[in-house]
Structures are given as structure tokens and as C-alpha cells.
């Protein structure tokens, strides 16, 4: 048994690394703000106080957390299986559309919500299936196939939202989810979908760290060749990695449409379902691709997203700065040994 101190130091290293990436992201983001004449201190103060210290802000932060946690799982689980699955964007859109489709039937209360959840998860998995098959059977790298499928999903959803799933009402959106099939709200615009997301994370954690299947998936991700010698079929493990990821991304899309007020529908330009999938990459990397770590990082990134509103109002800073920060954080996460390199450099200078 490892002592508490050992366990703590085991956790401390990845945590300092993640924090370091976040700090660099914020510093460079601040510089980018300063270049255009914004005050980064006021900007970030507005951002974080708006995201965490008001009730409406906190509700919106946790609402973003729901979405980001699930798309984070898509990418993080892929990484654990040795995959670079950046298809969450398309799978998310398909999940959102499937929820709208399910909402177009008039189902009894309760059942409508359940069918919506199931449809959105299946749609996400369906969109991940070609990627998995192409990877396992043909050796097509998932970066190319997922991006192509993301674009195909984009145009397919544009067609659906303007065609079969268009609402002829006054608002120019897709069909709205009937109020009986929505996630009940907790406070502000936070829906109970957050419990489903956290439950999903815990289930993934249990599968990955407490079952044989999870062990096999992680073995394939760690070293495919060794796993093969141990008698594990890498193809199967990768398939499962893609499929669970697709379920998560699809659920994220469905939970957004069925859970986040006031729309409960997809905009005709898809503007309310775009960009979530790629944010999952940063969530997973900062959460060290661990479902429980991702809960923490999803709250952080959720805050970053929800805080843009008050930052825009309070400091007139464009919301796009958050994407800049996320990009820098991901670039920093590519360097797991960044801290060690800097330490070495400093030590080298001291010894001279």
C-alpha cells in the first residue's frame, strides 16, 4: 500500500504541469489582449468573477461544464486507447440533431427525454463508426477521416435544420424540444444533465481502471505492439474507444439541445452547436485524459467560456480571446516535460 504522501506526490506532478500550461495560456492570452490595448487584468478579473462569483454565472459555468466534460471524454478516452480522435465536433452536431429529431415525435413526458438521450448517443456513435472501421480495417489515420466527417456532418446538419427539421414558427430555428422532454432545470440555466455527464465520467473511469476491458484498452494505448504480444486485439480496443467516445459526444450534443435554455432548438446557421467538440481536446489534456481529472478541468474551461459574457460587457474584450487561450494551453500540453526543461535550464545556469 502506498502511503498518503506518496499518493499525493504522484498526483502533484501532473497537476503542476496542467497548472503550468494554464498559467502560460493566460499569460500569452493577456499579452494578446494588451497588444490591442485591452487591460488584461480587468479582463481576466471580469472573466473569473463573472464565471464563478455570481449565481447566474456559476449556473452557466456548470452548464458549459456538462458539455465540455463529455466532449473531453471523447478525446481523452481516445488518447488512452492511442487514438487522436478529433471527431467530437461532428459527433456532437449529429447528437444535437438526433435530439431534435426525437423531439419531433410527441412522446409522453419522461419517455421523450429518455428517447432523446438514447437517440443522441446512438447518432454520435454512428458518426464515429466509419472512423473506427477505416482506422482498424484500412489503417486510415483518424485525423483526416474525423475532420472530413466533421465537415460532412456540418453540411448534413445545415440541410436538416433548413429542411426536414425546420420549424415553420416565427423563430428561425429547428423544431423545438417540447417542454415535457427537456432536462429539468436546477438553478439559473443549469440543467440536471450535469448529473448524467458526471455519471458518464464515473462509468468511464470504472470501465477503464476497474475492468479487464479497460485494462486492455489502456494497454493498447500504452504500447500497441506489446499489447498484441499479450494476446490483446488492438483493433477491438480501438473500436470500443471510438464508440464510447461517439456515445459521449452525441450525448453532449443532445444534453445541450435538451438542457440549455432558452433555445431548446438548433439555430439555422448551427451557431449554437459549433466549436464545442474541439474544446474537448484542451479539457482532456489538462485533465490528463483521466475522467475524474477532466471533471476539474471541465469546470475550469466551463468558467472560461461562461466568463466571456461578463468580460465582453465589463471590459469590452472579444470572446474569441478564449479560443486563443485554449490553443496556447493545448500547445503547452504538447510538452509534458516543459517544466523539467525549464528547471534544467535554470539549474544549468546556477551551476555556471
Amino acid at each position, binding site marked *: 500500500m502506498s502511503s498518503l504522501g506518496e499518493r499525493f506526490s504522484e498526483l502533484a506532478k501532473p497537476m503542476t504541469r496542467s497548472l503550468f500550461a494554464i498559467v502560460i495560456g493566460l499569460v500569452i492570452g493577456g499579452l494578446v489582449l494588451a497588444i*490591442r490595448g485591452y487591460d488584461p487584468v480587468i479582463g481576466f478579473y471580469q472573466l473569473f468573477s463573472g464565471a464563478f462569483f455570481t449565481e447566474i454565472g456559476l449556473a452557466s459555468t456548470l452548464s458549459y461544464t456538462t458539455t465540455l466534460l463529455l466532449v473531453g471524454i471523447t478525446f481523452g478516452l481516445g488518447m488512452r486507447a492511442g487514438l487522436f480522435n478529433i471527431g467530437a465536433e461532428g459527433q456532437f452536431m449529429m447528437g444535437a440533431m438526433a435530439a431534435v429529431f426525437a423531439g419531433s415525435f410527441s412522446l409522453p413526458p419522461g419517455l421523450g427525454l429518455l428517447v432523446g438521450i438514447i437517440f443522441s448517443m446512438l447518432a454520435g456513435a454512428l458518426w464515429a463508426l466509419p472512423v473506427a472501421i477505416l482506422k482498424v480495417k484500412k489503417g*486510415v489515420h483518424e485525423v483526416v477521416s474525423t475532420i472530413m*466527417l466533421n*465537415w460532412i456532418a456540418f453540411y448534413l446538419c445545415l440541410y436538416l435544420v433548413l429542411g426536414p427539421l425546420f420549424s415553420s414558427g416565427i423563430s428561425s430555428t429547428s423544431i423545438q424540444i417540447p417542454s415535457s422532454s427537456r432536462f429539468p432545470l436546477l438553478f439559473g440555466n443549469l440543467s440536471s444533465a450535469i448529473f448524467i455527464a458526471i455519471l458518464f465520467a464515473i462509468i468511464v473511469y470504472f470501465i477503464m481502471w476497474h475492468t479487464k476491458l479497460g485494462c486492455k484498452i489502456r494497454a493498447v494505448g500504452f504500447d500497441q505492439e506489446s499489447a498484441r504480444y499479450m494476446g490483446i486485439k488492438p483493433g477491438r480496443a480501438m473500436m470500443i474507444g471510438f464508440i464510447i467516445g461517439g456515445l459521449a459526444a452525441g450525448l453532449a450534443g443532445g444534453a445541450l439541445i435538451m438542457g440549455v435554455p432558452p433555445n431548446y432548438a438548433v439555430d439555422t446557421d448551427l451557431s449554437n452547436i459549433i466549436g464545442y467538440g474541439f474544446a474537448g481536446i484542451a479539457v482532456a489534456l489538462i485533465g490528463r485524459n483521466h475522467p475524474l481529472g477532466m471533471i476539474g478541468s471541465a469546470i475550469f474551461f466551463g468558467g472560461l467560456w461562461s466568463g466571456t459574457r461578463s468580460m465582453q460587457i465589463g471590459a469590452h474584450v472579444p470572446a474569441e480571446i478564449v479560443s486563443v487561450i485554449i490553443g496556447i494551453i493545448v500547445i503547452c500540453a504538447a510538452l509534458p516535460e516543459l517544466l523539467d526543461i525549464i528547471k534544467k535550464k535554470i539549474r544549468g545556469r546556477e551551476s555556471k
Partner: protein
Amino acid sequence: MTLKIPRFLTKKSVLVIILFAIAVTILYIMQSATLNVSSLIMISLPYIVSLGLVAIGEVVNERAGTTNIGLEGMMLLSSFAAVLGAEKAGNWAVGILVGIVASALIGLIHGLISIYAKGDQIISGMGINLFAAGFVAYGIWTIWSPGSHLISPDLGIPRISTPWGGLSWFVPLTIVLALVIHFIFYKTRWGVWIRAAGESPGAVDASGINVFRLRLLACIFGATLAGLAGAFMSLDWNRMTTNTLSAGLGFIALACVVFSGLRPLSALGAAIIFGFFGGLSKWMMGIPQVAAAIPPGIDNFVKMIPYIVTLVAVAVVVSRRRFPKSVGRPYRREEI
């Protein structure tokens, strides 16, 4: 007696022949239907140029042993920087230069991360894509107005006038570049070094050549060409800048690289095939008869064509490709 299949009938050559036949048939039908074929070619050319430049650069980079999936972001960043540079200087040439420098700088950072710091190349590349999408949107928001920005006509790169419309100088440039890189690859010492650096970096290192520097130069070169493509996209082709200008072309270029088996002339060939379908989709929507014939909404399926073709083509061909042994793996010296 068994039927002997001629050697040239590989899966890839068959696919190329089929795609070529489809293209010729389409062109023939259009010609007989008195549709404007030359305009289809003119619309396809910018796609071919953008894909070709990026793919040729990435072929060099991957041959030397580094992968870069941040090409999309580099194109985007350069397309924005080029417009900014051109407007500040009042001159398109400066714009191209600024675009290239911006992209090369990001290439340098990617190279330092992947080659010297031995970081994760794929994550770094994806980070570049995310950064670029945010940065360009932020830049356009703060400098001009949210969304997109059109450049004034006098800042656009002049074109060669032909009977079929203006032809970009980038078309001959791309072809010449492909030929030059082909020559360098197979006829010069530099070519041998670059190809060896991806295959067996230890051997190159042992022969006294700095593998790290060679790979870094190849990475910056790839980024430079992506930057050139980006400047072309904003200053010549679209004459505007927006944060969705690249629309997945950087990734289709990656598919071209896979398709080409890392040969520069094949990369250009792949760019011609994939670029044709990009042009076809855009061209179809531009014909009044076609636009009137298809019901509203169906045009989205036409817009999917380039992405579907890329997916299918890569699925058919990719398993036959053999890549250099050390692609994507940072080189570590054994001593120390």
C-alpha cells in the same frame, strides 16, 4: 494458366484512372450540353494551387521525419497576416511576405517543440489549429469588425489575363515548385539527406550532418509553403479574410500527402484530383440552371462532395502506402 496482372495496375493507379475517367466524362457531358467547361477548370485551379503548395511542403517535412497537422492553422494565420501586411504597407508583395513570415514563425515553434523538446507533434499541431482559429477571429474582430474583412481591389495580386479569365501567377509557381522539389529530392545531396533523415536519422547523424537542424529546416520550409498558400487564399483567390477561410483544405492537403506516398509530383497530382472536386462543387452551384433545378437545401450535399471524395479516396489507397520509418518520432542521440 493464371492471368497475369500488369504491374502498373496497382490499386492506386486504377483509382486514378477511374477518377480521371469520371472527370473526363463529366467534362465531355458538359461540353456537349454547352456548359462552360473552361470556367470549371478556372474555378478548380485555386483549390489545386492551395492544396498543392501545402501538400508539397508537407511532403518535404514528413520525409525529413516530422509531421505537422497544424497546416490548416498555419494557412489561416498567414491568410490573415497577409491581408494585415498588405493593408499596412499598401502593397500585396509585402502582404505575401508577412504571411509567409507569420507561418514560418509558427513552423519554427512547432519544430522546436517536436524536434528539440521532443514534445507530442500531433497535439502541438492541433494546438496550432485551435490557436489560429481563435487568433484570426480575435484579430479581425479588433482590427476591422467581427466576422470577415474584404480587401480593396488594388491590394489583390494581379493576374495573367487569358481568354478564359484571370489566371493566377501561383498556378505556374506551384508546378515549378513541384518540379524543383522533385529534382532536389532525387538528384541532389540535400534530397538524400532529407529522405534519410526520416528513414534512419541515426545514419544521417553519424555521417556528420545535424539531423535536428535538417528536420527543423524542413519543418520551417513546410510552414513557409503553407504560408504562401494562405497568402494566396486571402490576397489572390478570395480577396478577403475570415476565420473559416481554410475550410478544411489544410486537412485535405494532409490527405493529398498520404495519397502521394510522400512524392512531390504525386502530391501535385493528388492536389489536382482533390482540387477538381472542390472546384466541381463550387462550379455546380454557380450555374443558374443547376442552382434552379435542385431544391433548396440539397445544395448542402453538393458542398459535401470534396470531403466525401477525400474520405473515400484515402480509404481506398492509404493501406498501400509505406511511410519512412521514423516519421513522427523525435530523434534522440544515444549518447549522454
